[in-house]
């Protein structure tokens, strides 16, 4: 199946939702091309609010729209959403329990050579700090569409982290996303690889390479960060002798931290290696492949980490 850009999947879900009678109002901050929202604007020109390059206004206006009865959806680049509008997310959306869906577009190091102002390596840790926002990161178009469909019908704040590249499918057409789920993509008795978003594909690749070496790794797509069935995750992780977490995010506060919490709180002495952008580091500015290789979050980096777990 041909891969599809996740922002386009988002926009298709918006159009289908409006057709189904949902009062969806996308809000952009000059980010119409980032959001690939042209087709929606053509069909529903009065429905898109563009506040200009003003992320604080983006989020606050969305909160007001939501409190006024709309399903507001902010669509802009994740780094500017998270950092510039941090207090607006905290106060206007989360604290007020406003029905806003926040899309963090081109997250992680999607912007590559545009360097660190454009990288979003802290969004999961920031959002996890706000108590009541649901947090998702789809790994492919099939999952993305189902997450967006769910979010638009859920009442309350949601953050959805979207990668900026077209991702190949890891799920079949029969896949059904369930909030809170622990999505085991591949079974394996030796070790566990936990990933989310675009690096799920690196994890799948690494597991195949490890199998060639006789190591069976299970791959867990943790697309639902909040809610999360922690007991299910614990149960899944407790069966293998080691865990590797991998994320295009700082290792502090993201998926690796979440896995560490689950393991430690259960008193489970399973070794954990957290792969991500290291403590105190920024990501390199460059194309995705060498950037991932440098930070050891590609398939080769995961395989190398697996060797250390032996």
């Amino acid at each position, binding site marked *: 199946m041909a891969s599809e850009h996740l922002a386009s999947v988002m926009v298709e879900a918006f159009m289908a939702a409006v057709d189904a009678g949902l009062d969806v109002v996308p809000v952009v901050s000059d980010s119409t091309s980032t959001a690939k929202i042209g087709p929606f604007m053509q069909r529903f020109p009065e429905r898109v609010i563009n506040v200009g390059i003003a992320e*604080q206004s983006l989020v*606050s206006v969305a909160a007001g729209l939501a*409190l006024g009865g709309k399903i507001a959806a902010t669509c802009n680049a994740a780094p500017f959403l998270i950092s510039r509008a941090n207090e*607006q997310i905290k106060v206007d959306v989360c604290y007020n329990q406003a029905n806003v869906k926040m899309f963090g577009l081109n997250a992680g190091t999607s912007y590559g050579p545009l360097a660190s102002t454009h990288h979003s390596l802290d969004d999961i840790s920031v959002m996890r700090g706000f108590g009541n926002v649901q947090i998702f990161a789809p790994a492919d178009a099939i999952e993305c569409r189902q997450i967006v469909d769910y979010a638009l019908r859920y009442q309350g704040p949601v953050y959805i982290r979207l990668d900026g590249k077209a991702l190949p499918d890891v799920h079949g057409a029969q896949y059904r996303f369930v909030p809170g789920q622990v999505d085991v993509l591949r079974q394996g008795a030796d070790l566990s690889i936990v990933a989310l978003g675009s690096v799920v594909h690196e994890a799948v690749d690494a597991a195949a390479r490890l199998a060639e070496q006789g190591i069976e790794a299970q791959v867990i797509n943790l697309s639902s960060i909040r809610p999360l069935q922690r007991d299910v995750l614990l149960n899944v992780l407790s069966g293998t002798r080691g865990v590797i977490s991998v994320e295009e995010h700082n290792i502090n506060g993201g998926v690796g931290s979440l896995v560490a919490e689950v393991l430690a709180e259960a008193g489970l002495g399973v070794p954990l290696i957290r792969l991500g952008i290291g403590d105190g580091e920024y990501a390199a500015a460059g194309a995705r492949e060498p950037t991932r290789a440098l930070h050891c979050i590609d398939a080769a980096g995961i395989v190398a980490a697996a060797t250390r777990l032996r």
Partner: protein
Amino acid sequence: MNAFQYDALQIKEQARLIRRNIIRLNADSPAGGHTGADLSETDILATLYFRILNAGPERTEDPERDIYIQSKGHGVGGLYCCLAQAGYIPEQWLGTYQHFNSHLPGHPVRQKTPGIELNTGALGHGLPVAVGLALAAKMSGSPKRIYVLTGDGELAEGSNWEAAMAAAKYGLDNLFVIVDKNKLQLAGLTAEIMPLDPLDVKWAAFGFSVSECDGNDVAQLIDSLERMQTRHGAPQVLIAHTIKGKGVSFIEARPEWHHRVPKGDEINAALEELSHGE
């Protein structure tokens, strides 16, 4: 339609009773209070709640009600006293202001207090959210109006001016900003800390229709706010010139009363000054 529709004389009397409760509420607070801000905004709140707002205590869930947003969240003590006076909350609650886990926290919390429309406290949030509310009303064809009260010191927050541009772009003539221009903020004179003037020119340059009045004069407030409702095509702002601490001689225009509450003999002295109507 407003639940009261009072005239200027009746509103002035409500404002006097609200001010008396502001003195008691702050005196009973275990954690200080913003007495000066509560008193500067009193006449504005009384005019809104007893005449201007298409709202009432029986209609807090009515989707067509006018919305009032207190952007200067620290002045919530004055709002609580107004809400009690208008019957939104029981008057006994006023003795619990800032008490542990009470219905009346030190900043507005809509999940805690009937009549509160938006959680504020961090400054520069009320106007931007009000723009979204006004847009939602326009898009839905609702006649409801959105009123937002900001401080003057608060206008140093850049988020207000981002929102002002959006309000003008979308021609939000259902949005009414009232600036409680009491000329003082936490650490002193607004004119010294971050000069705002010429404030009328700033709002006009951002596309607002600008009105000004004495914000402690109920007749002027009624006149200005009702005139603003007849204008169309642009968002409205009323620069309400007020005196911080208005109504109590030893609190008026004194920076130290930004975050201070009446104590001991001050309580009765203040209540005495507020004991008679005109």
